[in-house]
């Protein structure tokens, strides 16, 4: 192939044929590659998005017999699900291996060595990892099973031990020394709080703060105790991990105490919390501890959290879940996410996610009643104690917060006064719940596109019609490429000018913009009218189809006039400050980087696209059609409206579709010319956040494989589908048009 073409080649016909075949094959493969590339994008996006819509899966891994299972009070598992531990009522902690290979092997037994007999047991919020025994002498002992991780020979080795986070001395909860029947506790920063029910039916709240004695260096407890006033029997006690709220459940009533200040414990609410025709059987705090989960004996579990009302913050019932109608319904919660689990007497396990109101999984995991349950810190495994056996479950539940309805419907988030569409993906706080509603950013996308189209379509189409139909061909040769060169202008430059030059300009000269809108059309008409009054001699000197050249100085003059007048109009009508006028008199918020700025800037980006395609469509209308119309006595304008535009209308439609596709996906302009706040408001003076800008802002920070990452891929997928539809329809219409013209 590379030989000198002047020399005769001595290739045999066979090898030439082979080369021909081979090249055909290669080129065909190359052509198909284009299709493959598009399909690859489509399916790859889908592949990344798909896991968020999978529901949870729970699988049994293995189980082993536990000898004294009736004595077990609490259980837990190490972070990587290698070691499980069981705490007995006597303070004994057994560590078992739950790793493959040595499953069920007892590794170690440690003893808390309680100073007196235990009469009750309680666990902290799961993420704190504390367990406590209430003792016969009115004291409470807190323990925490811990693992020392070492890497001898590059292998991970765990050494279990038992920590006493509050010292090896028990905390004296009741000064009178009555046995503790029930209690709840939490250790937060330097404070430990315990709420306890004693054998003689007193409910005591006590707060312990460790203080170091300045002279001796010994640590002493500064204790404050309050007796709470509860009528009736006490069924359950709960405390939020930060010790600010304490809940006492007495049958179907829940007393809510504000325990922020231990010297001033105050009852703030009394809830009658049971469902209709049902009684509460158990209660639990959700991760983050802003929500109270109450299980009823009819199988309903209701979620309550504090909502701002006219009378202050109050607990309200937000939503409820239908679970199983079995007795011994218990609720367990995850470490960090808002997932909760229900267990019941027939061995059924349910997995639910509160915010997305999703039932993720339900099924039978044991024969008999589930006696105890614990979730692993990474939420990918759980332990159940049932039928004298400890079973390890594997849980696949990566994206419980995302469901189709949570993405597109109003969701009531914790702490919000009402359900809403909220996009708020990250925050500094640990127990923050991500809020992924695609509605506000989709809304922003449509809003930005709409304002851009409002600006671009009239100008681009008018200009296209004039250029194609009225303009002299000499001028057209210059004008068309000039407008089209704008398509090549990087959008980052348009965005930068919009954000740093146009936005302040509009803010300063708002009346000028309104003035331009009114004065420009009027000025053009006036020029046209004045033109007819000019002597024919002068008129005939200027060639036909130069209207736009004549209008250039007019437009410039009007532009200058509008901006020069702006200050005076502002002084005269708006007290010298339109912004203040808008805010004070009309109650409109004014952002400097608003939809008007985006509309104009993105309009400029879209004008060349629409102009170019529409101009082609109008220009390629066969000349004999318009000539025929003109010959029959129709005016230029009548011919244009009734014949030319009608024929070219599919092409114009396709131009607008292409423009819309471009406006929907534009990133840099919206990123730079709006404040990027995900609000839902049609106001022209407020900004928005679009799908594309949202991806550009958040993608670099999102963790690979997280829900956030996948939702951003979903946003990209939505954009892909949007533009795919617009482009395909536009192309299809254009093809049809081309065939129509060729037959004319």
């Amino acid at each position, binding site marked *: 192939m590379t030989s000198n*073409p002047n020399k005769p080649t001595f290739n045999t016909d066979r090898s*030439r044929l082979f*080369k021909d075949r081979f090249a*055909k094959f290669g*080129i*065909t493969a*190359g*052509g198909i*590659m284009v*299709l493959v*590339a*598009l399909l690859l*994008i489509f399916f*790859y*996006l889908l592949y990344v998005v798909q896991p968020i819509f999978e529901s949870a899966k729970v699988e049994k891994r293995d189980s082993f017999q536990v000898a004294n299972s009736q004595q077990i009070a609490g259980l837990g598992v190490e972070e990587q699900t290698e070691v499980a531990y069981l705490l007995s009522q006597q303070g004994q902690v057994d560590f078992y291996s739950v790793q493959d290979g040595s499953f069920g092997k007892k590794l170690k037994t440690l003893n808390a060595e309680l100073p007196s007999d235990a009469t009750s047991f309680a666990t902290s919020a799961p993420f704190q990892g504390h367990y406590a025994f209430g003792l016969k002498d009115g004291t409470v002992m807190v323990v925490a099973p811990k693992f020392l991780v070492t890497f001898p020979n590059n292998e991970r080795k765990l050494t279990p031990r038992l920590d006493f986070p509050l010292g090896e001395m028990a905390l004296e909860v009741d000064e009178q020394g009555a046995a503790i029947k029930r209690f709840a506790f939490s250790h937060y920063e330097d404070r430990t709080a315990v709420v306890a029910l004693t054998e003689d039916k007193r409910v005591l709240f006590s707060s312990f703060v460790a203080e170091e004695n300045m002279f001796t260096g010994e640590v002493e407890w500064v204790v404050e105790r309050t007796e709470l006033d509860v009528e009736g029997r006490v069924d359950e006690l709960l405390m939020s991990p930060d010790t600010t709220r304490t809940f006492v459940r007495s049958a179907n009533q829940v007393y809510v105490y504000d325990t922020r200040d231990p010297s001033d414990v105050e009852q703030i609410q009394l809830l009658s919390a049971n469902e209709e025709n049902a009684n509460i059987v158990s209660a639990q705090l959700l991760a983050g501890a802003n929500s109270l989960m109450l299980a009823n004996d009819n199988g309903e579990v209701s979620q309550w959290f504090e909502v701002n009302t006219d009378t202050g913050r109050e607990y309200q019932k937000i939503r409820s879940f239908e679970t199983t109608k079995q007795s011994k319904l218990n609720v367990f919660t995850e470490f960090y996410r808002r997932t909760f689990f229900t267990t019941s007497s027939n061995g059924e396990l349910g997995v639910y996610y509160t915010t997305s109101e999703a039932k993720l999984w339900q099924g039978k995991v044991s024969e008999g009643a589930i006696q105890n349950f614990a979730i692993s810190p990474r939420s990918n495994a759980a332990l159940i104690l049932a039928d004298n056996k400890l079973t390890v479950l594997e849980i696949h539940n990566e994206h419980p917060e995302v469901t189709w309805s949570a993405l597109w419907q109003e969701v009531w988030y914790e702490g919000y006064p009402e359900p809403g569409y909220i996009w708020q993906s990250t925050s500094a706080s640990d127990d923050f719940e991500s809020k992924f509603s695609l509605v506000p950013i989709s809304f922003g996308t449509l809003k930005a596109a709409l304002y851009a189209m409002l600006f671009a379509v009239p*100008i*681009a*189409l008018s*200009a296209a019609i*004039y250029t194609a139909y009225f*303009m002299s061909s000499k001028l057209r040769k210059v*004008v068309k490429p000039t*407008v089209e060169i704008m398509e*090549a*202008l990087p959008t*980052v*430059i348009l965005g*930068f*000018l919009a*954000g*740093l030059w146009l936005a302040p300009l509009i803010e300063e000269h708002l009346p000028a913009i309104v003035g331009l809108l009114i004065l420009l*059309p009027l000025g*053009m008409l006036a020029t*046209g009218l004045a033109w*007819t009054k000019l002597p024919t001699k002068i008129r005939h000197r200027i060639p036909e189809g130069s*209207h736009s050249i*004549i*209008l*250039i100085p*007019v*437009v410039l003059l009007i532009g200058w006039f509008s901006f020069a007048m702006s*200050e005076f109009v502002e*002084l005269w009508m708006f*007290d010298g*400050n339109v912004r203040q006028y808008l805010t004070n008199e009309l109650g409109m918020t004014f952002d400097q980087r608003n939809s008007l700025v985006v509309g104009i800037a993105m309009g*400029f980006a879209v004008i060349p696209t629409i102009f170019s395609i529409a101009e082609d469509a109008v220009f390629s209308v066969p000349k004999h059609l318009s000539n025929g119309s003109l010959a029959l006595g129709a*005016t230029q*304008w009548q011919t*244009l409206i009734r014949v030319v535009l009608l024929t070219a209308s599919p092409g114009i439609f396709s131009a607008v579709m292409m423009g819309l596709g471009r406006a929907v996906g534009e990133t*840099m302009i919206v990123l*730079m010319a709006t404040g990027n706040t995900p609000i839902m408001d049609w106001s022209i003076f407020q900004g928005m956040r679009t799908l*594309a800008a949202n*991806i*550009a802002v958040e*993608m670099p920070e999102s963790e690979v494989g997280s829900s956030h990452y996948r939702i951003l891929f979903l946003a990209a997928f939505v*954009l*892909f589908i949007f533009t*795919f539809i617009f*482009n*395909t329809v536009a192309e299809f219409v254009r093809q049809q048009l081309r065939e129509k013209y060729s037959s004319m």
Partner: protein
Amino acid sequence: MVKQWFKSGSPWIWMTGGAVSISLISVLGLLAMIAWKGLSFFWPSEVVQFELEGSISKQTVIGEVYDRELVPKTRLAATGIDVSGFEKEEIERLLIKTGNREYVDLDFRWILETDIKNKTTPATLAVFERSKNGNFYGYVESVIKDGKPVEGDKIEALHELVERAVDLNDEALDLQNGDIGHINYELERLRLKEKGYLLDNALTDERVAELAQERAELRAQYGVLEKDLFALRKQAKRDHVTVKDMRGEVVTIPMYQVLDVWFPNDMGFFAKLGHYFVQLGKFVSDDPREANTEGGVFPAIFGTVFMVMLMAVIVTPFGVVAAIYLHEYAAKNAVTKMIRIAVINLAGVPSIVYGVFGLGFFVYMLGGSLDQLFYPEAAPTPVFGTPGVMWSALTLAILTLPVVIVSTEEGLSRIPSTVRDGSLALGATKVETLWRIIIPMASPAIMTGLILAVARAAGEVAPLMLVGVVKMAPTLPLDGNFPYFHLDRKFMHLGFHIYDVGFQSPNVEAARPLVYATAFLLVSVIITLNITAIGIRNHLREKFRSLEH
């Protein structure tokens, strides 16, 4: 009469004509504005000394007039200024760039025109361009050479010493980035080599000794070079200059911080013109300083060009082959239709979607696999499993594929079929016809497509933000260290530079002229590329038109 005029439809013709005027004005106005703002930045504007008194206490302000605007009296009153003495409804105020960033609170300040009691432009006012804290404005008091004040012509001595300090700094920088950078690079390679041996269980004592020896050699070289570097730095620190600033205080500026000094009020037109081109040259060839708000944009230009060339190498064969398939081989069937729809859609899919795809597929999936296969020793630091210039080029190659296809296909369709038929009739096979006749004839069209693709890629920012661009890259993707091309490195890009400096920098006001200058640079490159492409295309059309007759 008017009624009839309206009935004739000509008002609407005027209106549509007006739309063309608006489009033209905005296109040309936009380009003119960018050019003006971008180019005027380098002109040495005069430095004015203002004596102020009135709404503020009596003081002197020295600086360049940066901007001016009219403010209504009412708005001034709202900010707490006593406006009772003003006669006019609107007051002019000036934005002054005062420089001297470390001595004043703000290096930009608004002053009211009514406060100006006196305004002078003394010829002895000097502007110091510094490597830290921006410009300094003031009067040269004394030039201190090696601890002793210079006698005689201070200014000449100053220029001489500044030049010396700049030369020394350049030398030190060359040493640091060149030889010392090379040694650091080699040391890092040795570390990876050792880790690689360790992973393969091939780290024999022999090899350990070998590595240790190489390391020792490098360290020894390093020691020598380091001494040279310190010596250079010490020499650069020898001289100082003392300057009286606008507060009337004498400030000492070490000479090694001074990059340039000029006396704008003392310059004639040609001196200013000369200075203008020097500044323009520095902008194109220098590294950025002060969080990109000052200095040049050389690494961004280099990064853009490098990435775009890499992309061109990838996209051209694919685009041309696809176009040849569509025009020469494809049958009229459903598959061809689908491919055409795919081309249209590839052109229409938002660029950010390509960015997302590139990040997920190229960076994490392909890059992650490459790292596992070929760079296990670098773990956990990713080599290709992180955004970089290669992934950027690949992503943009898909993005610009349709541009090449459409342009090439247009060129192919303009070649008269008689040419093809002639070649086939003489017994050439199809591929021979293609290779010897068609492609050479279509090469200007391919060129056009390539130029348009390059222009598109050079202006695209959104996908690059995800797949490899950074605000500040310490090293270029091409340098003197083996293997010379570092496709895994991140790079700087002109478009992203505009976004970053204009919107993410702490001192937007100071950076704004630089952003305009960068924008002008980018726009002029892209417009030039486009005009060239259009020129080639038109030329081609003419050529084939004559061929047909």
